[in-house]
């Protein structure tokens, strides 16, 4: 870690000195770049700002007051209402989402990591074929698989259970692809050889040596998978009937389609959407540190 920081500093220093001597960046291009970046920042942040503002209003003023500024600030009261509505069914959904995405993402990462590692480091017949099949899996949209999965799960009577959403979530072809590439370049054969000579079994080598070297890729896979599962909507829509199993995205969608019957749900849908992005933000902020060091580690090679 410290060596990475050191190196980054050196790179920055060399850039700075070059910049001082070389042709200066033109003010125009700099301004244009800043404007473009500013515009994109606004573009991405305004919906969240809107959501925050809308989440702080009561049902009436959502539609009648300026959508980008606060009217009657009652954010916390709304959150309280949300958590209390129908005996806290929203909290149940949030817990389900965390389970599906958190545990599912972790298991998916482990499986993808092991698979990618095996494909990168062991030579066996059919290795390329397996890899190509997995690659093919990247190309098949999850939506297209939802219905066949439903029929298969119906055969084994697992629809409308936790497993109906969890099991399909622990497969990540993209993760296999990424970890294979990463393992091939970051886990050196010499190191594995050394571990074997020291008497470590293959499993132990994987869990003590390789997994650490692959950590940046694994974090990336976890983040991707976490977000994918969290936002996965079609699979729960098809698989689940019992409200107590819904993830938060599906639950909010269901409420949103009931607005005609119960317009008061509007404020709950909005505050619910706002609360539901918090775990994603937390996951990103707390894991991006590793992610960045991962990219740097790749660059050094």
């Amino acid at each position: 870690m410290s060596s990475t920081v050191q190196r980054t500093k050196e790179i920055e220093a060399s850039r700075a000195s070059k910049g001082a001597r070389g042709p200066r960046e033109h003010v125009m291009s700099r301004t244009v770049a800043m404007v473009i970046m500013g515009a994109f920042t606004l573009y991405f942040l305004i919906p969240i700002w809107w959501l925050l503002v809308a989440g702080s209003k009561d049902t009436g003023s959502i539609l009648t007051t300026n959508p980008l500024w606060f009217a009657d600030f009652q954010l916390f009261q709304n959150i309280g209402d949300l958590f209390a509505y129908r005996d806290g069914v929203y909290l149940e959904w949030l817990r389900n989402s965390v389970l599906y995405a958190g545990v599912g993402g972790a298991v998916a990462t482990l499986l993808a990591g092991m698979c990618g590692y095996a494909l990168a480091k062991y030579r066996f017949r059919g290795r390329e074929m397996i890899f190509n099949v997995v690659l093919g899996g990247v190309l098949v949209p999850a939506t297209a698989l939802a219905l066949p999965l439903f029929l298969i799960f119906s055969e084994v009577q697992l629809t409308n259970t936790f497993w109906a959403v969890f099991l399909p979530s622990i497969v990540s072809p993209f993760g296999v692809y990424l970890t294979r590439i990463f393992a091939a370049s970051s886990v050196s054969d010499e190191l594995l050889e050394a571990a074997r000579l020291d008497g470590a079994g293959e499993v132990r080598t994987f869990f003590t040596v390789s997994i650490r070297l692959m950590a940046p890729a694994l974090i990336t896979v976890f983040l991707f998978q976490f977000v994918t599962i969290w936002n996965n909507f079609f699979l729960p829509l098809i698989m689940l009937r019992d409200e107590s199993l819904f993830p938060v995205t599906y639950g909010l969608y269901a409420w949103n389609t009931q607005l005609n019957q119960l317009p008061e749900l509007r404020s709950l849908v909005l505050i619910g959407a706002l609360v539901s992005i918090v775990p994603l933000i937390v996951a990103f902020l707390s894991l991006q540190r590793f992610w960045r060091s991962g990219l740097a580690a790749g660059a050094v090679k």
Partner: protein
Amino acid sequence: MKHTKTAAAAAVALLSSVTLAACSSSDDSVAGGACEPAGENVTLEFTSWIPGIEGVVDLWNAENPDIQVKVQTGPNGNGGTYKNFFNQIEAGNAPDLGQIEYDALPNFLVQDGLEDIGNCEEVMAAKDDFVDWTWSQVTLGTESSVYGVPQDSGPMALFYRKDLFEENNIPVPTTWAEYADAAAQVKDAGGYITNFSQSDINQFAGFVWQAGGSWFSTEGDAWDVTLDSPESVQVADYWQDLLDKDLVSTVPAWTDEWNNAYNSGDAWTWVSAVWGANSIASGAPDTAGKWAVAPAPQWTEGGTDAGNWGGSSIAVLKGSDHKYEAAKFALWLNTSDESLTALNEAANIYPATKEGLNLPVLKEGVEFYGDQAIYDVFKDASSQVVPDFTWGPTMTQVYADVSDGFKNAVSGSGTLASALADGNASTIAALEAQAIPVAGE
């Protein structure tokens, strides 16, 4: 070479897993037919999207230990629940009971997704409890078959800004001709009489319904498609005229812009269903106390016809082992005072039974409408809904196609009437594509 081979193998593997899944469904062990009690305790599954229906089902469960109902709520029908029903029927694990809107029932019928509960004595005995036209919505033109128990209805009436009409000395229109005259006066006063919604095709169908038209009818097994019937074209030409003269606004319905048009007084009336009362109250809160409800404008002077927009039934889905118990519960849910009161309280459900229209809660004045007892107007409307309107088996496609045509008409290419003619042709094509017989072809 090697590469292509492996890719092909991968494709085969994927394909075969898909086809395998597609074939290995549906078991035919479940017998339909007889409507007899199981003679033991049963648990029914029931899927609905009415917010708060759990509380209503709890009332039933407390009194009926031998027939327990497990209710599951999800998105509304077109929001995914219908698709799920079809998948579950295919896989043989559909719930016993499902909520299905009137306009979707024919689709379920042609896909063989419904149990006929016409041989359940209690169902047939309840026939006269329901408002006549709601009953014909669930018998689908048959004599002895019943494919669902009517739950709610959406009789239409005229919501109008009482204050603005009075201030500007415009009489409240009682016929569509007067409505067009009023539209011109409202325009002079700086507003629009209403907003023409290009996407609410079932509202337009409600207008056609009121005019005595129907979009479908059945002749034996065959479907007759009449989207461009004379009544339908009459309604289309009427609105086309208002559009051409710029007397109605055309903002997309159910958007903030639309709510704002009503909230700011740009739009003065809305011919809508009973549930629209809450849409206005929540979408235009600043106009509280300024609205009133009158019977919908008529095509003939002194006429008393009403249209309908919305409404659903509770159907027993194919494969249910407990038709008798399911029908019994559905009847209780949609006819008993305690259930109807609770449903109205939870989700403003407007009953489909004659008695239900007299619930105490539907006799009270509504504050938002200047304490007018608005449900009296809808009660009359409910009894005046023309009983012959029939929905087709491909309404999703009909709505999409006609809506596309209406959008074009509103933006100036084509007319509402030509959109209906195009919709008629594409609907016939869609039916034929599904091998559903079409009459007169």
